[in-house]
């Protein structure tokens, strides 16, 4: 190779300037913290009876169209969340239940339900990914909201979400992203999340996350079979009468307590969460990892400007030589 040592060193200088400034003090961005008054849901799989009243109510209050998965298009039968559906209840069949021989709910060879809708992460990937602030996290309620008037439809949020929640309308000329926004549009009327409002067993419970978290801890500590009172509707206003039932054999885990830095929807179950489609996730949020990387490379534009300075200096010298050579020729 004919690149002289001197030239090589000059070029290498430009490269190392970037690396040197790039690896300097920029601090790792920690996980974000949940707002004090954050609102959310507690979904208790052991209380869910799979009636799908929440699916129906969600459709109604959000003006979403029905979606059909069976031949007779008689009623709304979504199999998953989509551009037309923000919330579904899925059933998981374990062991022999898959072939029809079902044991009791939540038992071995039995079945269990799981609610699929936005978990309202404390440090959401979709908000970090969105290039235009169409996905935002409310500083007071912590609700992850979406504004279609800002959205460019790049679907980085769809791809980034660790729970596969934001969905897109592929069948529309003027599409938008669809995701649960915890019925924030109903809060002005003093209403709360429709899914919790209509839930007959309190499997989906609405309220402040700190209260929901305390309730979740109480349930996990219950002895299986022990009679206890389950609140319904809104845990803070007690707008609905509670009911008494026997405690299930809860797993000692509150899903959403720590996953990707915590979520404002907490989940309880007697069946392993991974079987119910809830992935095992680290405590550090992916948003924090990604933003730490970006801030390390681009924080204060220090590294790019330093690199530009070196490049400008070197290019000026070399282009000047260039011009002289050209002029001489003429």
């Amino acid at each position: 190779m004919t690149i002289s040592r001197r030239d090589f060193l000059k070029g290498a200088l430009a490269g190392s300037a970037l690396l040197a400034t790039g690896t300097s003090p920029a601090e790792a961005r920690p996980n974000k913290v949940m707002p004090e008054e954050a609102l959310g849901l507690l979904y208790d799989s052991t209380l869910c009876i799979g009636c799908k009243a929440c699916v129906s109510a969600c459709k109604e209050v959000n003006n979403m169209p029905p979606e059909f998965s069976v031949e007779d298009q008689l009623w709304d039968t979504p199999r998953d969340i989509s551009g037309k559906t923000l919330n579904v209840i899925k059933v998981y069949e374990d062991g022999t239940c898959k072939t029809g021989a079902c044991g009791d709910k939540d038992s071995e060879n039995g079945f269990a339900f799981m609610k699929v809708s936005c978990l309202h992460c404390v440090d959401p990937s979709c908000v970090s990914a969105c290039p235009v602030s169409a996905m935002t996290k409310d500083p007071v309620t912590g609700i992850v909201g979406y504004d279609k008037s800002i959205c460019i439809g790049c679907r980085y949020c769809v791809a980034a979400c660790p729970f596969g929640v934001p969905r897109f309308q592929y069948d529309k000329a003027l599409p938008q992203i669809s995701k649960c926004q915890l019925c924030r549009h109903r809060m002005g009327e003093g209403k709360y999340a429709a899914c919790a409002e209509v839930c007959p067993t309190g499997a989906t419970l609405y309220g402040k996350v700190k209260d929901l978290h305390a309730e979740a801890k109480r349930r996990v500590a219950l002895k299986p079979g022990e009679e206890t009172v389950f609140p319904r509707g809104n845990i803070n206003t007690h707008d609905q009468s509670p009911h008494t039932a026997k405690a299930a054999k809860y797993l000692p885990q509150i899903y959403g307590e720590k996953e990707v830095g915590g979520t404002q929807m907490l989940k309880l179950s007697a069946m392993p969460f991974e079987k119910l489609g809830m992935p095992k996730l680290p405590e550090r949020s992916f948003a924090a990892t990604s933003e730490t990387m970006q801030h390390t490379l681009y924080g204060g534009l220090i590294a790019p400007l330093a690199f530009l300075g070196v490049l400008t200096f070197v290019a000026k010298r070399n282009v000047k030589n260039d011009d002289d050579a050209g002029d001489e020729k003429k």
Partner: protein
Amino acid sequence: MSASHNHPAPAPLGGSLVTPTTTLLAILVAIAGVILLVRFLFGIGAVTNVNDGYTWGIWVVYDVVIGSALACGGYSVALLVYIFNKGDYHPMIRPALLASLFGYTLAGAGVIFDLGRYWNFWHIFWPGYAQINSVMFEVAVCITAYIIVMWIEFSPAFLEKFGLKDIKKKLNKALFFIIALGILLPSMHQSSLGSLLVVFGYQIHPLWQTMLLPLIYLISALTMGFAVVIFEACVASSGFKRPLEMYLLGKLSQVMWWMLTAYLIVRVVDLVVRGAIGTAFVFNIEAFMFWIEMALFIAPMVILSNADSRKQPAKLFVAACSLMLAGFILRINSFLVGYETGPGWHYFPSVSEIMVSIGMIAFEVLAYIVLVRYLPVLSGNTAQSAIASNK
């Protein structure tokens, strides 16, 4: 670009614009146009196979991520000429830059086809809307800025054509800064195209999810840039019946070999340090595609390690093709093969989706042919002999 180190000045090739090749290219462009019309009338799902599990298909992964990497010829050669002061490579600048200009302009335009709410695209640059923590924000701003910078870098070719010497002279005075920007910006966004995947977290297979993604994408884009220059030189010399500048290409391939070696060291050390290398020895599609990717990177390294091979156009061409394909597969692997959002999702591009990408390539080649015939791009004396041999 400014005047050169005693190289013949670039000159237009001339010749007919309507040939069987250009006609075929025009037909492919028209087909893509019709498909895009359907897309804008009936939605993205009407012509593509993308879904909520694989929301980014080849219109993002090929047209933008791979397309822009294949358009790194201008970046790679500018780095060599202006930063490492290798004036020898000067005749390569304009053709490389023109190809890059088209590659990037089309990658930028191609984004519009894939944006669901394309009429809002300007929000990404608008204070108040722009979200600076987003990797995509950085990619979008840098790619847009680079497209503008490249048009300015290339403008001397237009200015010469139209005899606007005064403007050209003024532009030449500021050109060093434009050139510096023209190296900074692709360094930023080519690395960030890899960083896009970091926020995907566990959804990207460990063979591709690493904090070194920006470095891996950056070095591979640079090597792809050199490979494309060699590829284009070979194709242009046979297409336009020009002699091949073997001396330069041989030297360039050696630079490429060094970069390739650096790339492979970074890639393998990263896999070992993260403890992800074990997943490459499992019997599944990810491991299989990983080895194809690695083989395509290793093959040109082996070919180019031999000084005699570097002097043979056929071997150079094979090495360049292998490397372009390697960068292609690396990007397909990290964005699609190694991406898993949960059970039940599948994606393979539809015919109409592929036809749009082919139409974009056809448009690029067509525009390149038209412009080198019309504008001073390819270096002069060989251009003259090309015309002579065409007669």
